[in-house]
């Protein structure tokens, strides 16, 4: 039994949903109780998807247990097929259904639907979201590419690659994909299939037609890529192109796989190297940085931070236990000890102990950093609505490296500004109670003495109004971020009505008056 407050990864069936939702023509029938439908909001709210994930939940209840949960599953699968007419059905169980052992795969096959059924077994009490995504993707690739024979290709034809890994709810996957697609196009490499994002089951069947695979996110595509290599001899890229150095290496790797002798120069839009060398960036030297995230992004961040921005990496860790070895090796090379852990409180303690000047982490570390008053940039899942910016904001490629420079350096600069602001706060231009905004809890809490019970309305000057003590108390119950407005509105309302003492009723009269 593990005591958890916040988790880095959801259950493995959420990983399966990330694959199903990324693809086209696939429908996932999930044996699960009603509450598990919360997972839809991850896609519709956090990622702002414009349609529901292609998932039907059986939503069995206690009264169904032991009697007809299997029948319920069959009905759900039958109806889902009839309604959505997918090219293939993915079926599986969530944690609760795993315990009742209904065998979704067998049940779905017994229906003899006219489309293939792929069953995934995701042990919910052992595994987690990323593993679930990888396993599901692998099972789908196996199911649809498995029977294909490799195609003989003409020797002079341009080389073709698959791009594997981008999924739904991924950290900047949409933008990374575009960046990497551009890089491949400029190298003259043709893209065969991109999967899972936007791929249909029929597209998966075409995977063997590529010469090699570009693996963007090993957490998701690693298992499938290894199988494709075993089965079809397709080699995979090993370098994830995050940062300038890694992008150069990635291009060299792709060129080697594609048999391209002299890859064209394509660094004209790369600004990180110059920005990092400009005198302005001098103050970044040796900044202590703590890095935590999924393995792919943590490894990349460590490399960029130490070799491209001149930071001092004082902490490196991941919640992806599957990749612990890689992280340990990278940490050892930096002369520090790796943190392999999925307890955010332990990560918090490690951050506090390392005393970094910058945290590169997940949304969880963003909160920790806020609490500790340390600037932070988010580099990895678990995602938050803010991790889906409207603008393009890749992490990969040369443009991605530019984005890293901006988004890691900005919080440091902000921190500096706030600090200066704090120093000068006694000056008359600054509100005495203006607190640094972005540092949240680290800023002075509202411990300032309660406002004097008697206040004069500044506007007009002529009329003075006072707050009755109970009205003043009532006002303080209003959240601080709208309290100022409530106070102003009530006072001008009182002045307008010639009310001398503001009572609780005046407060609510004013509220009603300004209601809109």
């Amino acid at each position: 039994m593990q005591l958890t407050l916040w988790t880095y990864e959801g259950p493995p069936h959420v990983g399966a949903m990330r694959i199903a939702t990324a693809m086209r023509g696939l429908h996932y029938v999930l044996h699960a109780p009603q509450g598990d439908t919360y997972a839809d909001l991850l896609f519709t709210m956090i990622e702002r998807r414009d349609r529901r994930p292609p998932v039907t939940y059986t939503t069995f209840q206690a009264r169904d247990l032991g009697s007809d949960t299997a029948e319920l599953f069959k009905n759900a699968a039958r109806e889902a097929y009839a309604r959505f007419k997918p090219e293939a059905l993915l079926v599986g169980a969530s944690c609760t259904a795993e315990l009742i052992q209904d065998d979704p795969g067998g049940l779905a096959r017994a229906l003899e639907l006219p489309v293939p059924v792929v069953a995934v077994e995701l042990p919910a009490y052992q595994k987690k979201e990323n593993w679930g995504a990888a396993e599901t993707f692998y099972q789908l690739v196996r199911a649809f590419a498995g029977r294909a024979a490799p195609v003989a290709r003409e020797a002079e034809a341009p080389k073709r690659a698959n791009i594997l890994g981008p999924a739904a709810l991924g950290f900047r996957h949409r933008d990374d994909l575009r960046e990497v697609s551009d890089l491949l196009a400029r190298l003259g490499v043709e893209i065969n299939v991109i999967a899972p994002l936007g791929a249909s089951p029929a597209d998966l069947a075409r995977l063997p037609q590529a010469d090699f695979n570009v693996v963007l996110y090993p957490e998701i595509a690693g298992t499938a890529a290894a199988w494709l290599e075993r089965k079809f001899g397709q080699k995979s890229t090993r370098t994830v192109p995050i940062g300038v150095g890694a992008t150069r290496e990635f291009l060299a790797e792709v060129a080697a796989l594609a048999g391209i002798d002299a890859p064209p120069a394509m660094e004209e839009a790369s600004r990180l190297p110059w920005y990092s060398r400009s005198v302005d960036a001098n103050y970044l030297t040796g900044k202590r940085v703590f890095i935590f995230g999924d393995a792919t992004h943590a490894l990349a961040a460590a490399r960029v931070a130490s070799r491209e921005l001149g930071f001092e990496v004082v902490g490196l860790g991941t919640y992806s236990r599957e990749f612990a070895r890689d992280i340990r090796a990278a940490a050892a090379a930096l002369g520090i000890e790796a943190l392999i852990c999925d307890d955010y409180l332990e990560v918090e303690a490690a951050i506090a102990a390392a005393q970094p000047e910058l945290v590169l982490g997940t949304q969880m570390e963003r909160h920790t950093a806020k609490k500790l008053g340390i600037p932070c940039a988010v580099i990895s899942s678990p995602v938050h609505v803010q991790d889906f910016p409207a603008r393009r904001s890749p992490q990969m490629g040369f443009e991605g490296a530019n984005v890293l420079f901006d988004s890691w350096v900005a919080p440091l600069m902000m921190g500096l500004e706030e600090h200066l602001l704090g120093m000068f706060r006694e000056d008359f231009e600054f509100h005495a109670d203006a607190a640094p905004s972005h540092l949240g809890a680290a800023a002075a809490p509202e411990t300032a003495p309660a406002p004097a019970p008697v206040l004069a309305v500044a506007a007009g000057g002529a009329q003075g109004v006072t707050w009755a003590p109970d009205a003043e108390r009532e006002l303080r119950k209003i959240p601080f971020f709208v309290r100022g407005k409530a106070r102003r509105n009530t006072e001008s309302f009182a002045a307008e009505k010639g009310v001398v003492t503001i009572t609780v009723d005046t407060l609510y009269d004013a509220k009603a008056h300004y209601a809109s």
Partner: protein
Amino acid sequence: MSAAAATVRPEAPGGCGAAPVQQERGQREVFCGLTGIVWLHRKIQDAFFLVVGSRTCAHLIQSAAGVMIFAEPRFATAILEERDLAGLADANEELDRAVERLIERRPEIKLLFLVGSCPSEVIKLDLSRAAGRLSKKLMPRVRVLSYSGSGIETTFTQGEDACLAALVPELPAAPADAAPNLLIAGALAEPVEDQFARLFAAMGLGPVSFFPPRRAADLPAVGPTTRVLLAQPFLAETARLLEARGATVLTAPFPLGAEGTSLWLRAAADAWGIPAPRFAAATALPEQRARQAIAKSGASLAGKSIFFFPDSQLEIPLARFAARECGMRLTEVGTPYLHRAHLAQELALLPEARLVEGQDVDKQLDRCRETRPDLTVCGLGLANPLEAEGMATKWSIELLFTPIQGFDQAADLAALFARPLARRARLEV
């Protein structure tokens, strides 16, 4: 202000005469009762909620809480692992250890709820026995109780019902000859509680207590002279247990909107024999203020159609408010569960609409698309997809997290419905 407005009474409940209710069974798109923890832990400020469940349960609460990530929230999940499934004896031992660690780290906890989930119930981990065992060990420092928030037993707000029901046996007994006392059941925002307390004081009605209390030690007493006014429509089990303790549950509409609030207050006033003028003196002004504010903030709603997906059991009172005080046209009103006795007066007030109990989400989406309502009240999973299809939506969960009860919040409630429409009217993109 018309004094009559304050004293509008509903006709006797319609019973069989009430509109027929369509039953639907199929895929449900609702949260489970665990979600209630998100607001309950804020309400009872020294209580801790320990879910005994799976990674899914932890992820659900985290996702439902969304941005409301607190440094040290007063809830957590004890995630069952492979070896806990192997033997219940070990699972119990593990649970005891997890609780001990927790109590050690959080000495301020006075009340600990062990919250059951689907997995804990399917493997038959008996949390009420565990709570008894742990209570014995930890009392008087910490009281340990248990309830089910599982998705196989509870839907969304039923989690609050189950939590309060678990607290009822803990309430001290009021003596049989105690003065009549009023118990308001159902979690309300503090300013709303304070407003109600002031209104009852103004009409000379008391003592009044609120359940759940803000602190675990302040559990109100209950006995044969206790009258209960339900502040929320989803408290079936809590009400039943309070009745079993001798209390009388007053029937009333729910305190949403000026009308609902007035009738709700009136139900208590009648039970206390408060003369009409005294009631009017206490409530006429705020009621009139509420009506005027609604007229303003809800002005844009008149004649607009509204469609409710089943979610919180608040749907019927909300529909009644939308129709009668904002002039909206009801299309479909879905509710996950309909408690006919507690909603009798609401149903009597409700204009005609298609009432649906239960859910088959795909069929309901078909009906919604066919109806094309001006506003759809639905859960977070459905809102953006419907918006993308050109329909304005209001997230139902916001109606649980925002104070909407009482006179001075009535206009806020109308504004919650009006804002999506106002926004669409502004946007030119």
